[in-house]
């Protein structure tokens, strides 16, 4: 099993074209189908121009959104010409909800970073997407337009999320030259860490992935900083990590490490929950 279908968020936001280029290359590389997706939600009345009342506005807005999405769809098809199966799903709905829902059609969801307020109604929330979509999410930093994952850092912690991430990343790991496991290890748990990393190496070997190096991070503070620094020192192309989160009063609260990785890393990240 490999990736048979990829999904990419393609909108008018910053770096969308770069992200699409990356997705097209990946789809060609894996001979996978590529599904482009974008969503638009209604502007709340106080942000909309002019008359704010009634269904008239809503209808007009809906037409406008559908037209805009169709236009983006044309751009998507133009850019994805080389992909054998390209499909466009533009829907007037909140982008995050839409992608979470439609992700059932893909093996990997490719999205960009969260942007400021001006993107609030078109943009999507990477954290929520990761926690809810049930698929691995490839987060592409701004201005990155290619991913040739020769050097991959796996940020390992023996949890459900990390296990998911590693298994989800196997198609990419198989193509890498260098796979480095970094165990984030607590003081006093070294023996267990060693055991779990060895087990992981053994598991990956069964999948024809050779782990080239194992490293241990022994830090209590700022794990994310250390991880990113480590990955940069290793000139990694991709970080694979568990996406941790839990629901608190209906909001998705994110594990500190995941949040920092989402926000700061300049390297692509693959997250699973």
């Amino acid at each position, binding site marked *: 099993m490999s990736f048979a279908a990829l999904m990419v968020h393609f909108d008018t936001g910053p770096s969308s074209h770069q992200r699409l280029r990356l997705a097209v290359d990946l789809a060609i590389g894996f001979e996978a189908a590529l599904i482009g997706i974008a969503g638009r939600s209604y502007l709340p009345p106080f942000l909309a121009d002019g008359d704010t009342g009634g269904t008239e506005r809503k209808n007009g807005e809906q037409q406008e959104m559908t037209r805009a999405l169709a236009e983006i769809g044309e751009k998507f098809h133009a850019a994805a010409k080389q992909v054998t199966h390209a499909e466009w799903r533009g829907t007037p709905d909140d982008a995050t909800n839409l992608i979470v829902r439609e992700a059932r059609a893909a093996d990997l969801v490719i999205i960009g970073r969260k942007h400021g307020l001006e993107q609030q109604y078109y943009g999507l929330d990477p954290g929520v997407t990761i926690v809810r979509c049930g698929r691995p999410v490839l987060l592409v930093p701004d201005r990155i337009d290619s991913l040739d994952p020769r050097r991959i850092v796996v940020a390992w912690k023996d949890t*459900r999320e990390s296990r*998911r991430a590693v298994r989800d990343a196997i198609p990419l790991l198989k193509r890498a030259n260098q796979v480095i496991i970094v165990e984030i290890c607590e003081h006093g748990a070294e023996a267990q860490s060693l055991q779990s990393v060895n087990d992981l190496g053994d598991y990956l070997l069964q999948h024809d992935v050779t782990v080239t190096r194992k490293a241990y991070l022994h830090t209590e503070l700022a794990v994310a900083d250390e991880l990113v620094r480590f990955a940069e020192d290793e000139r990694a192309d991709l970080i694979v990590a568990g996406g941790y989160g839990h629901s608190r009063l209906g909001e998705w609260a994110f594990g500190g490490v995941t949040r920092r990785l989402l926000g700061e890393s300049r390297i692509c990240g693959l997250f699973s929950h």
Partner: protein
Amino acid sequence: MPYVSLLVHVDLEDQLGGHVGVAADLADLFRARLIGVAGWAPMSVFLAQEALDNPGVGDFHLQDMKTLLDQRGKEFCAAFGTPERKVEWRSILDFPTEAVAREARSADLVIVGGIAQSKDPFRRLDPGGTILKAGRPVLVVPKHLAKLSPKRIAIAWKDAREARRAVCDALPLLEKAESVVVVEVLEEGSSNGASHRVKDVAKYLTRHRVEIITEQVRPADVIPINSLLRLIESENIDLLVAGAYGHSRLGEWVFGGVTRDLLAEIQICCLFSH
């Protein structure tokens, strides 16, 4: 990703066979290695970790437990190891639920027996706990079954993370199936777009070279799993693929109603993902 490594929980009391036999058959089907795990937790919770890792000469109780576990391992390897089938054994002095969930990192699929095996809480595996903790798909084999040829598979679809995971996790089995039914049982307020959703799942499966797929949308019964059970009976289903819905509350695992009922009542093999 293919199944290259399977892990099966081995009971200390029952006859070898049942779900262990199913695991061995699956290992052959996928040419995967088979890891057997047995767990037995010592009574005292105050034992130091070192004592658990390496039971000393003076500690007869732990020694005896370890000997018994290893003995079970020898039986397992003798019964299921063949030149073609690579088997491995792990004896663990811990609760089986914990032990299996932990060791699951080495495997693509975990196979356990259904509810109610041992009466001894220190040796009993709780399938539900394993499912929620393992981070891997778990195949639950009802007690009376010793064989599984997953020709007709049903997917209990619900548009949630868990069901999506289950579909991905089951791909190696789905690829080998003769027919696959994607079924969504309607819940209150979910009827909109159900047929679109199951079609979308079918399309996803087609991209993974799963050939014969049918889609169904079924109305809910008063008891939700009855719709599923009826489908299983009428379509002669061998294996059900489903998401396991549950969360931990104050250290206890709380299951969604359907998952709990499925675990308690289903008479065929069921692959759960969380």
